[in-house]
């Protein structure tokens, strides 16, 4: 086994059992899945995406491209979890992915033998034709063979939360720079959030054998973290990845609260944070980059910094005989550290010729690795020495370092482009790429520990100054100041075989050469042609190498070649976290009327109308089909009395000396002339002349109106009125407020409605409450409003009471209605009643209809200006052949009409060019004993009495109809006035 006898930030006294691909292993607290597997001698951890090549762990961080696992069982199974960041918990079940039948014997590795045919652009070239083969044959095969982990296919039972946080200074990353920045800002009294994606604070300080202030660096980090946690103005957030930078100092972050626990004990699994910061200090460190050489993807080949992390932080030797391949001084450190721990180092291979490392192992300068061998893991490597000879070296681990890339990703999230620094052969953040964000330490290309500490402090001081907070001068710890020299070296030239750049998407140096040959030379083209950088690591490992290869091929410099744009998220974010709170009932708010519980108890079938839940129909004993209930309820209203909760209509209370003038300007018809105690129907237009909404407005007092809107338009109409009052006519003395929720409103409709109310209220005859009258009444001592309005065409009233009395009023009204042969009715009956009358809903007021189209031109006042007046007179809107609202009734053998059918002339082919309009609303009318509909028909007002067809091509119905007036029932309106 590979556990080094002592050392590491793990608790060796406790053993945690877990399984990987069914095999039992143990880990210690502090281990990641990757470190535990390495400690147990497991090198093979996955198969690559396309060629199913065996892969081992490459890194020790969130940039890991290879060691992706499925964690958990059943609905809890999470695919594509990076073993390098996944903490092992008791009983964890981990599985490798993208292999069949097992990791060691993957039959789909045959893809690797086919690789000469599967190169870059393969999908584009091969599967162009025959077209129908794509869906039927190619895609299923590719989906089977290529892929990452499997989804569980079950609903995610875990709980996610979302939260907001606000701070003066957000510090991203808890390495030396971040710790110093947070400490300085905290001392100065700033409200600080320090977020780190790791489960312990310290960054590389936990991975290196170095000292800060005379202490082991990991201990200094732990002490600093403890000091920060004691400051009341500092919040330390571990397991928290800042995933995106957005406008206005807003950052997205994911906190993994319970992913590392065997039992979450009710805690949310993850929290998606939105953090608003006045200043941000990016101290995210750097990621090491590999060097491309033939067969550089064999398990056991790892980044040199990761080898050190496994050794120092986890007490794990990544191999027993380790070779190091580097282009920089940092690689030497790996060899030295391993030797100090008693691990055999079989070779240090440095690409540079002008260096002479003083290290007690075989050293090759001016040399390069040109190949590796070994089944399911490296056993030997071939080194081409400075004189051109090739030598074999034994190694079960090859530590590779190609230098470090600053983790500048967040600075690209608002479109910023990084700056190339030749001296460190890396891109660094361009200042001000994100307003009020400063990058420090390794994230800014400053790779020395002391430099990171100083930059972190300086950034915090600048923030304190800007915030006008206390200036502080903390002690600068003693630390290593070595930057480490590097000579750019991206891939080993003049070699045979495949040198891998993108381990996740299986892209090689040759693929980039092919893209260049085929003229996909712009970085964005090259990326899409080869799929480089498009896997879950988003090119963290591969982008720089590919850029460098393309730069060589085009003869341009790297900055001239360009850089791909980094977009959020920095690391993959689970949909569950992004959608926290939005699953199931959380998807949208629900609105309930005051009579909801009563309706449900009565057995009503409910329907969602926007956010509202309303009773659709009330089944009576023996009724098994909605039509039976609906027909009965319609007849009940037409012949006796029906009761319906209409509280969902928008109600807007409008008051002020100028309220009447205001209404004149927003409605097409006059309201300032409306008498107190009267109600008027009104139409409202948009400024472009189209109908916005309709409804009734009652004048309760000289300066007091109550407007009703349709249920769906309540919000938009309220915004529109506020716009008119605040933006167009602020000089008008008028105020308005929505009172939809404050008043319950119930319709009492039918010829016996007056009888019903006479027993409850008293005299509501035509003399005291004429048609379109309104006034205050008392019901059982409760002040109520009574409106003589009708949406059914019958003699009808609506009663409004304060919401708290809604349910009691409903019970009383239904009881009295039932005694008169009536009862409650729902939305289905309400809809039939209004279609029979030709009354409008937003199926007709669809945003394309003018007042003239709806046949209501008489409501356009000529005595005043109003919103939409001028635009409604545009030439095109006056065309007599516009689609106009009519009624339709079947007159042929087919007696059915379907909503949404298109209208065509009797002899015309039902194609778009012949379309004469469409059906907006249909119903079976018990009153007329047949189906009826409302429809828009070109020039329809002039075609009353003609025939036309309503055709539904999807549902195969072709109905010969007569065009009639939309007022099917009681067109003179005598019943409502009765």
């Amino acid at each position, binding site marked *: 086994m590979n556990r080094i006898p002592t050392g590491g930030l793990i608790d060796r006294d406790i053993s945690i059992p877990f399984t990987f691909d069914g095999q039992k292993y143990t880990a210690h607290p502090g281990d990641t899945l990757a470190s535990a597997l390495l400690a147990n001698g497991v090198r093979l951890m996955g198969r690559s995406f396309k060629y199913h090549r065996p892969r081992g762990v490459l890194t020790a961080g969130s940039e890991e491209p290879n060691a992706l696992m499925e964690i958990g069982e059943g609905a809890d199974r999470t695919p594509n979890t990076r073993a390098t960041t996944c903490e092992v918990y008791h009983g964890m079940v981990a599985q490798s992915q993208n292999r069949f039948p097992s990791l060691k014997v993957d039959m789909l590795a045959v893809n690797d033998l086919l690789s000469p045919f599967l190169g870059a652009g393969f999908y584009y070239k091969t599967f162009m034709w025959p077209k129908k083969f794509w869906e039927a044959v190619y895609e299923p095969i590719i989906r089977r063979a290529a892929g990452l982990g499997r989804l569980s296919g079950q609903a995610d039972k875990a709980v996610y939360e979302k939260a*907001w946080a606000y701070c003066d200074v957000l510090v991203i990353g808890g390495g030396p720079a971040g710790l110093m920045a947070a400490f300085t800002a905290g001392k100065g009294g700033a409200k600080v959030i320090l977020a780190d994606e790791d489960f312990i604070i310290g960054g590389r300080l936990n991975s290196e054998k170095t000292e800060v202030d005379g202490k082991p660096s990991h201990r200094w980090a732990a002490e600093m973290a403890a000091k920060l946690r004691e400051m009341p103005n500092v919040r330390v957030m571990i397991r928290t990845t800042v995933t995106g930078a957005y*406008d*206005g*100092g*807003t950052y997205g972050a994911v906190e993994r609260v319970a992913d590392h626990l065997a039992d979450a004990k009710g805690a949310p699994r993850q929290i998606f944070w*939105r953090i*608003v910061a006045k200043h941000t200090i990016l101290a995210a460190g750097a990621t090491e980059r590999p060097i491309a050489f033939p067969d550089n993807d064999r398990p056991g080949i790892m980044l040199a910094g990761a080898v050190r992390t496994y050794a120092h932080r986890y007490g794990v030797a990544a191999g027993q005989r380790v070779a190091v391949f580097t282009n920089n001084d940092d690689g030497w450190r790996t060899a030295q550290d391993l030797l100090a721990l008693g691990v055999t180092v079989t070779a240090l291979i440095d690409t540079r010729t002008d260096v002479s490392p003083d290290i007690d192992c075989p050293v090759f300068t001016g040399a390069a690795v040109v190949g590796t061998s070994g089944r399911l893991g490296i056993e030997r490597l071939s080194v081409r020495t400075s004189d051109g000879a090739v030598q074999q070296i034994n190694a079960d681990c090859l530590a590779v370092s190609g230098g470090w890339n600053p983790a500048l990703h967040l600075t690209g999230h*608002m479109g910023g482009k990084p700056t190339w620094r030749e001296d460190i052969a890396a891109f660094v953040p361009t200042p001000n790429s994100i*307003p009020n964000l400063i990058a420090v330490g390794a994230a800014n290309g400053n790779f020395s520990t002391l430099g990171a500490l100083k930059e972190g402090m300086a950034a915090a001081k600048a923030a304190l100054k800007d915030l006008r907070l206390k200036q502080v001068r903390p002690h600068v710890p003693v630390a290593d100041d070595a930057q480490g020299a590097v000579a750019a070296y991206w891939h080993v030239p003049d070699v045979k075989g495949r040198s891998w750049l993108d381990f996740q998407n299986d892209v090689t140096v040759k693929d980039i050469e092919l893209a260049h040959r085929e003229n996909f030379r712009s970085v964005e083209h090259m990326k899409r042609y080869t799929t480089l950088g498009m896997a879950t690591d988003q090119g963290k490992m591969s982008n720089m190498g590919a850029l460098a290869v393309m730069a060589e091929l085009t003869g341009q410099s790297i900055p001239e070649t360009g850089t791909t744009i980094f977009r959020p998220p920095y690391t993959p974010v689970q949909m569950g976290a992004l959608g926290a709170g939005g699953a199931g009932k959380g998807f949208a708010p629900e609105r309930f009327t005051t009579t909801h519980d009563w309706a449900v108890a009565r057995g009503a079938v409910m329907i969602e109308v926007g956010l509202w839940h309303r009773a659709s129909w009330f089944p009576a004993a023996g009724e098994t089909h909605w039509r039976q209930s609906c027909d009965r309820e319609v007849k009940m209203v037409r012949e006796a009395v029906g009761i319906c909760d209409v509280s969902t209509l928008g109600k807007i209370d409008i008051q002020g000396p100028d309220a009447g003038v205001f209404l004149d300007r927003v409605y097409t018809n006059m309201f300032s002339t409306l008498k107190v105690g009267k109600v008027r129907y009104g139409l409202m237009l948009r*400024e*472009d002349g189209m109908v916005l909404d309709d409804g009734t407005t009652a004048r309760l007092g000289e300066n007091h109106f109550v407007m009703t809107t349709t249920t769906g338009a309540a919000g938009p109409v309220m*915004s529109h009125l*506020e*716009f008119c009052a*605040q*933006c*167009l006519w*602020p*000089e008008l003395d008028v105020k308005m407020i929505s009172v939809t929720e404050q008043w319950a409103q119930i319709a009492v409709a039918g010829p016996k409605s007056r009888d019903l109310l006479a027993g409850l209220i008293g005299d509501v005859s035509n003399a005291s409450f004429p048609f379109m009258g309104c006034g205050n009444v008392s019901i059982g001592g409760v002040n109520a409003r009574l409106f003589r309005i009708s949406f059914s065409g019958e003699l009808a009233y609506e009663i409004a009471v304060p919401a708290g009395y809604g349910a009691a009023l409903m019970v009383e009204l239904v009881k009295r209605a039932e005694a008169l042969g009536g009862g409650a009715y729902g939305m289905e009956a309400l809809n039939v009643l209004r279609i029979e009358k030709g009354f409008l809903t937003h199926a007709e007021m669809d945003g394309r209809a003018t007042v003239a189209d709806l046949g209501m031109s008489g409501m356009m006042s000529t005595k005043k*200006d109003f919103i939409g*007046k*001028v*635009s409604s*007179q*545009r030439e095109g809107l006056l065309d007599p052949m516009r689609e106009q609202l009519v009624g339709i009734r079947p007159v042929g053998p087919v007696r059915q009409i379907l909503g949404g059918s298109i209208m065509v002339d009797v002899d015309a082919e039902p194609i778009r060019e012949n379309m004469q309009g469409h059906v907006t609303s249909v119903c079976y009318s018990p009153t007329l004993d047949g189906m009826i509909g409302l429809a828009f028909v070109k020039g329809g007002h002039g075609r009353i009495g003609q025939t036309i067809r309503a055709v539904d091509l999807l549902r195969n119905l072709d109905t010969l109809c007569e065009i009639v007036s939309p007022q099917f029932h009681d067109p003179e309106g005598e019943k409502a006035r009765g």
Partner: protein
Amino acid sequence: MRIHCPHCGERDHREFEYLGSAKLLERPEGGDAAAFHDYVFQRKNPTGENAELWQHVMGCSAWLHVVRNVTTHEIIAVKLARDVKEAAR
């Protein structure tokens, strides 16, 4: 984006609803069809600063006159639309 509502303070943009150009404040007087055509349909499409109307729908319901850089999303100035309209009279 963060918008500073003069009534409520700085809030996330999701509390607000966007309407369009602040040109909508300048509704023509009288019945000139050409003036209304311009008012209803013609919009500048600037890069950089633009004056816009937003409503604080999840807050105080105030209509706001917001000067915003549409390239960088920087919010440059926020006033009550009512005040801007009255000042123009």
